[in-house]
């Protein structure tokens, strides 16, 4: 069975280590916040200018001056810090973020990523994605293995305009967890009940199945 979005988020949450500063993109990455393991102290960064993002507010707590990078109303926590957007991207560029999780439309076997623009469709903009992918030292890209047409999103080369070049080392899809190295997707973990053949069929880029392939625990 392919992983659900919640299961993808749960698997990523296992990558969290005590003391991590983490930036979670919009979509599946945001769900990771719901699965932070007990006893693991992580701080969430929101690139509009907040470190220590708390949960959504209660109706009474809603405050228009406190939003996250997805423009959702949020709260702060003890130890939170507010700063301006230049300072925020300063900490991103100087690699103080321990883990960055973001979605993508396509990833290539060289580690290129495309997630901001579809030619012919209306362009909304890259927001902070280009800064994040070019700067972060530890990125997990998470997405479905295929697009709604059933085409693989793990490609020899991206077909869409790039967000960043040779910057992605790890991808988690609903079918498997991949390490990108030496110009190939190395399947290191596979979703329970999914066959290697299915993964092969749905990976357009070069695939290497790890000798130590594990099944993702859900």
């Amino acid at each position, binding site marked *: 069975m392919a992983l659900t979005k919640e299961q993808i988020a749960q698997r990523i949450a296992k990558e969290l280590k005590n003391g991590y500063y983490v930036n979670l993109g919009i979509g599946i990455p945001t769900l990771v916040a719901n699965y932070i393991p007990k006893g693991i102290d992580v701080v969430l960064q929101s690139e509009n*200018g907040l470190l220590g993002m708390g949960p959504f507010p209660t109706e*009474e707590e809603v405050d228009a001056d406190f939003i996250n990078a997805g423009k959702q109303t949020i709260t702060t926590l003890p130890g939170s810090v*507010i700063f*301006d*957007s*230049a300072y925020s991207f300063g900490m991103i*560029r100087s690699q103080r973020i321990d883990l960055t999780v973001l979605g993508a439309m396509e990833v290539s076997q060289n580690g290129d990523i495309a997630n901001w623009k579809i030619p012919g469709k209306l362009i909304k*903009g890259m*927001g902070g994605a*280009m800064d994040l992918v070019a700067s972060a030292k530890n990125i997990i890209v998470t997405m479905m293995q295929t697009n709604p047409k059933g085409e693989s999103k793990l490609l020899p080369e991206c077909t869409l305009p790039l967000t960043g070049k040779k910057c992605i080392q790890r991808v988690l899809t609903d079918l498997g967890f991949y390490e990108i190295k030496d110009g190939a997707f190395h399947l290191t973990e596979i979703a329970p009940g999914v066959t290697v053949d299915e993964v092969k069929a749905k990976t357009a880029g070069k695939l290497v199945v790890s000798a130590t392939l594990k099944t993702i625990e859900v």
Partner: protein
Amino acid sequence: MNKVVANADEAVKDIPDNAVLMLGGFGLCGIPENSIAALIRKGVKGLTCISNNAGVDDFGIGLMLQTRQVKKMISSYVGENAEFERQLLSGELEVELIPQGTLATRCMMAGYGIPAFFTPAGVGTEIAEGKETRVFDGKEYLMEYAFKSDFAIVKAWKGDTAGNLIYRGTARNFNPMMAMAGKITIAEVEELVPEGALDPNEIHTAGIFVNRIFKGEKYEKRIEQRTVRRS
């Protein structure tokens, strides 16, 4: 040092057609609501707006799009705006998209008197087209320039008559850098206090960068995504 002007109309009265403006805010958070309303009343045209976002159809910069006052947007993200889409597709509106960190830093550098700097954002993408690249310690960077703007319009929480500003929460966002970056900087504040009422240690923007300040009226502070949890 008294930089107080009577109101928003007074503050924006000499902004000419075709001016390049910086407008603070992220989404609808921390935007200069009163100044935008005054720009619409004034009817100034052909504006180039440097702002992270373009508002929504009926709030923020979106209002100036409705009135066709904007010639060009320089932003990092411009979704959530149907009129914007229409003008963009019809060719009425120009858009230049810039990575958010680069946008913030190009504002900051203008305030810091640094004409150019290097950032990795956008290397190998279409953003890099025509730009000088350079390798430092084995990593490739783009050279980016400080923005030039005629007016910067920012929104703060508290300000004193000398133009010193304090922002509140994530409404800070782009405002401090833009405040430093305008040839003329206009600040609107929720609370206007006398000199000495703000702790010198807690001020986010030094008044030296602010040319005009006024107390804004009736802040709506529209929320774009009202997300709540059960209490």
